């Protein structure tokens, strides 16, 4: 398949763009594979890509019940960062960040990773200390972090209200300069194309309806496109984890599926040149290259599989937005949508072998899954290939909850809607 480049664009333009090939094939499923990855989202696709690239395992099928990338990889607010408090998370997300930094080259696909920084605003001295704790924790793991004062913040985001008269005045902020945003769909498509080029079968409109077993061992799946056998079956279905695990006979998981809304404004000339978060509520914003302000806030706060948001959160998010940007009251919200978040009991993910023989589980991304996409697939591929976790995902076991080895960045306990 042709490499993408400025040259190939020019060449194809001269022939009327008639010679472009599909970004990935649309094969029928084979009877069996070495590995089946359930879930054609970002994590499933990156898993398949790294299985092929890092471990030479190419007899792989990715099964997607709808269209590829129809889940959270195409529904998020595109922020990429590794600014965590706890070392287990920071190490993992920093590995992801390093993969991000070379991802467009690696995939020969421009995922538009723009390292425009992520700034967490602090509004009380105690919060500034909290952010300093986090930033210092990052620095002690070799991750970039800086504190910014109000003048620096004002220069970076002139539209921000930093007046002392605000209800929650900005006192400073924690900046991770290497953080930023990426084009979400491009990540799915780039991984799909990369995996496909290495021989992975990506099978859309193929919903898993059950599991094949030999004794206690998972040996394949039944799908809307027939039975498919595999030596290893890996789940990367995010918000649908509870549902798919029930198909495997596991009725309870340390996960709740919640809906998270996201919003885009009409297209505007550049006004927010970084990723920004509000400290006295839950609000985050960036601006896409097309000019839309992309923003969101809290979960709706109850179990849902509906990809359908509620009105109170809309009002809350907009109110917080205007607390930061009182000049944007006349800007208009153009689109809203909901994504399903697989919220765990400590806010950290699960990437592990098991819990059934022949099964591998990747889930619990809460609403941080997009930035994890490269490392999630990379670590999951390692876990599937080696039958043991890499040190980056070793802490993210399923039994950590029961053993008290919780990784609770927000300190909220077993209350998923608060993570």
């Amino acid at each position, binding site marked *: 398949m042709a490499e993408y480049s400025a040259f190939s664009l020019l060449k194809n333009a001269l022939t009327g*763009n008639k010679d*472009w090939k599909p970004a990935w094939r649309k094969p029928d499923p084979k009877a069996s594979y070495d590995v089946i990855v359930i879930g054609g989202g970002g994590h499933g696709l990156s898993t398949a890509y790294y299985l092929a690239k890092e471990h030479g395992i190419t007899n792989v099928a990715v099964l997607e019940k*709808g269209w590829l990338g129809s889940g959270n990889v195409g529904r998020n607010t595109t922020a990429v960062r590794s600014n965590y408090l706890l070392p287990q998370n920071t190490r993992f997300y920093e590995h992801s960040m390093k993969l991000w930094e070379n991802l467009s080259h690696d995939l020969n696909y421009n995922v538009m990773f723009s390292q425009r920084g992520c700034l967490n605003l602090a509004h009380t001295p*105690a919060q500034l200390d909290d952010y300093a704790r986090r930033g210092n924790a990052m620095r002690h793991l070799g991750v970039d972090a800086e504190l910014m004062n109000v003048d620096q913040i004002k220069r970076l985001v002139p539209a921000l209200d930093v007046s002392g008269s605000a209800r929650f005045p900005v006192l400073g902020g924690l900046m991770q300069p290497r953080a930023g945003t990426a084009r979400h769909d491009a990540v799915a498509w780039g991984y799909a194309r990369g995996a496909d080029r290495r021989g992975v079968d990506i099978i859309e409109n193929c919903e898993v309806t059950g599991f094949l077993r030999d004794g206690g061992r998972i040996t394949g799946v039944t799908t809307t496109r027939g039975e498919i056998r595999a030596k290893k079956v890996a789940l990367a279905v995010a918000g649908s984890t509870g549902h798919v695990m029930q198909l495997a006979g596991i009725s309870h998981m340390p996960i709740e599926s919640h809906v998270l809304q996201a919003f885009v404004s*009409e297209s505007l000339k550049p006004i927010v040149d970084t990723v920004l978060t509000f400290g006295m509520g839950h609000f985050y914003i960036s601006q896409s*290259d097309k000019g839309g302000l992309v923003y969101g806030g809290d979960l709706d706060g109850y179990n849902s599989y509906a990809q359908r948001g509620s009105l109170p959160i809309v009002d809350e998010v907009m109110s917080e937005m205007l607390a930061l940007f009182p000049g944007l009251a*006349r800007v208009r919200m153009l689109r809203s949508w909901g994504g399903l978040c697989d919220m765990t009991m400590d806010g950290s993910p699960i990437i592990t072998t098991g819990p059934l023989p022949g099964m591998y589980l990747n889930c619990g991304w809460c609403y941080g899954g997009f930035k994890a996409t490269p490392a999630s697939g990379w670590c999951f591929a390692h876990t599937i290939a080696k039958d043991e976790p890499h040190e980056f995902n070793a802490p993210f076991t399923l039994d950590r909850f029961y053993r008290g080895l919780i990784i609770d960045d927000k300190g909220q306990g077993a209350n998923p809607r608060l993570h």
Partner: protein
Amino acid sequence: MSPRRTETGGRIDRLRTIRFTFDGAPYTGHAGDTLASALLANGVTLFGRSFKYHRPRGLLAAGVEEPNALVTVLRGEVREPNIAATMVEIYDGLVAVSQNRTPSLAWDIGALNQLGGKILSAGFYYKTFMGPVIGPLKGTRFWMFCEHFIRRAAGLGKAGTAPDPARYERMNAFCDVLVVGSGPAGLMAAKAAADQGARVILADLEAHFGGSANWSGETIDGMSAADWAQRTVAQLGGNDNVRLLPRTTVWGYYDGNTLAALERVTDHKEVAAKGEPRQRYWAIRAGTVVLATGSFERPLVFPGNDRPGVMLAHAAERYANEYGVLSGQRIALFTNNDSAYRSAVALKKAGAAIVAIIDVRSDVSNEMRRLASDAEAELLADHAVVATEGGKALTGLKVQRFDAMSGALSGDERSIHADSLLISGGWSPTIHLASQAGAKAEWDPARQAFLPPKPTHRWIGAGAFTGSFSTAEAIAEGRAAGLQAAGGAESSAPLPVVEAAPGNPDPAPVFEIKAKGKSFVDFQHDVTAEDVRLAHREGFVSVEHLKRYTTLGMATDQGKNSNVPGLAIMAEALGKPIPEVGTTRFRPPYTAVSIGSLAAERFGDLKPERLTPMHDWHLANGARMYSAGLWYRPMIYGLAGETVEQAYVREARATRESAGIVDVSTLGKIAVQGPDAAEFLDRVYTNMFSTLAVGKARYGLMLREDGLAFDDGTTWRLGEQEFLMTTTTANAGKVMQHLEYFLDVIWPELKVTVTSVTDEWAGAAIGGPNARAILASCVTGTAVDNAALPFMGIVQGRIAGVPVMICRLSFSGEMAFEVYSGAGYGTHVWEALIEAGKPFGLVTYGLEALGTMRIEKGHVTGAEIDGRTTARDLHLDWMLSKKKPFIGSAMMDREGLIAPDRLELVGLIALDNRPLNGGGHIVEELDEANPHDSLGHITACCYSPALGKYIALALVKGGKARHGTRAFVSDPLRNRFGPVEIVSNHFYDPDGSRMHG
């Protein structure tokens, strides 16, 4: 007379002239004009520039779906970008400017992008800009370099930074029947429901009710449809049970039949009346919704279909009939259906010459042929437009013979001179709200449109929304829907009689004319038919991939014009029927909604402010306030010239030397009452409360269910069955919910009630060696000596005549008392204590001094009980009762919670005698250049006047085992590195002799 204004007709007020400017040039229009109609009347053809190629664009539509004519409306410094000119009602002094052009709308340097032509095809940016693999532009640098320019070239209008001075308002409304849309169907529905006595709300996004009746030229009940609509609205307006909401867009259909609407209250006014908000956000809870939202006319896709002067047929009809403006003098129409013939006749009547009707169909009915001849138009059946001519205005078009079955063109091109080309590609019902409600649309092959399916919520459709495009059907369905929604019986009474032009509602299934040149599907985003086919070639074939890859339908019109044509072109490429490509699910909002309206009253007032009863006293006495959650609390009471550190050191020192007083009203206070109150507290606290004597208080610790520390505070036993629990300020609400949950869900058998009384009590803590003497001098009704008021004892008395409750407990480590009075007497008691303290040099102290003294004592607060620490981590394991189970007891000993490498509470002393910082980390080996191996972090720090040192509390791996050892603070964020000694967290008076007295 402006060149395009008709002599008569329209609903504008020709006697009232309105003056406004567009891009700085002055124009006039009439009352009733929109910015679009007024500019059109002035001969303006160029309204905007497209997103990608910056192509010149004119008006396509007359309503909310306008994709091209986007403007920014200015009110002083306040900007409102991206408003469709079709939705701006003009007023005297209106200032509007065009967007996305440099330097001017007529001469836009961005138009150079058109030279990029086929290189800038759909998704081109995914295939390039990756940059070199090595060198200074490796990684993301090259892309970010390119992105800098791309970002500035992209984007439509410019947002303002000046705060919007407008007010926004939210209303909650309840009704039996909400009717959305006020065309003939909506009016009939509202009338029928109102006549049944139902509470009705009728909302329409336009300024005037009536919908298509306002411009259809049809006759209803013997009068013009517009007059009939006005009469019906007047009848509705006379009913007490009807609320009319014009200029109100119902934009969201949410769960529970809750609909969100935006009313533009004063946007059309030069000056708002006193008290009027700019916009009003309605949350409407409707019993039943009647969706009478009409339909959109679709454009046809052919080369040059975006040239200024190409307009939807009904839009031109509407400009002529409603605003008295002609889209041109020589008009051609291009259609695949019958509705354009009616438009032709209407425009002929309004005074334009109809040069041709170009119809892709061969089987044009005799009725339509008659209408064409009424319009004195040449009818070119079996023909299609293959090109348009002109620059920033249309001058002509080319047609060719066309076979609708095969899509083939044949014969010679023929040129037609025209200054307006009207197009009609059939109609799509406006099913957005039904789709938001969760219903999946169904393709109707006859109508060539997605129709609404069976409702998923309590709504009923009527009129064009259901695919019934004639006014007679709309009227019948409207009445039936209104009756049904109001619970009335079907009516056999005669319906209003409609006289309308004939017409078959089913178009020919022709969406695109394939000929040389750019044919636009999504006008604003410049998505062409070739882009759709490129998406097909590259495998982006499902509707969502198509949208995302090409950006089709992602512009401000949200695909209202482009959705069906785009799907049709993809379907043809796939060789599949349209519904197999997929149906777009619409999501809120139906049209873009101002963020100000959604914030409503919370714009400029995000959260309530919580103030203690003594707040004003603090402000009047020099307090600098600190925002803590929603509360405001004194941080310091600074003297002139004092730094914060000087102030808190003075306050803390004075407290330890004589006495200090601090406002503690913000502490959470919960009354726990009932026969089982003591038992309940035994279950929620780790330590025993059933053994607590009446009139005594005890410090208590709560865990979460998972065994981690949750909150701490003192609880006072006021009676055998009555306790007053105090919580930390931050956790007051959480603790209350925690207690309620257990009482209501887990242990409903316990006879206990809990009541939040935080706001009922004012609290003052007075401590220091002279605290008791001060109290003794002002308290009546009780003694406060050691016998009457021992450590953790409680007494009731009076201060300055006011009943108070006094508990002898200490956070500062001094002999100290908490004095509670009714909140209304808070300041009175506070002032009495201050007065009594004067002879003793009593100081007021703030949070900084409070924090300083608690650090010296090694007490924990939220910085240490941070949701990740256990009782053992905080050396509070002495509080874990072994005599009883309590919340968290079963879970607190799991392996991860007793691991040796957990962070434990310690004290730190700065050995370099320099200030420490909260959030600084602790390391064994200092490496300023490459900090690593953090042992933990500082949770709180201060200068300790009692020790004369900079000290801190910290959570450090190893904890107690490190007491007496040396380590380093490593704070690269603030460049603070230096040696510290790790010590016990109990810095000061560890055996408590001062507070025990």
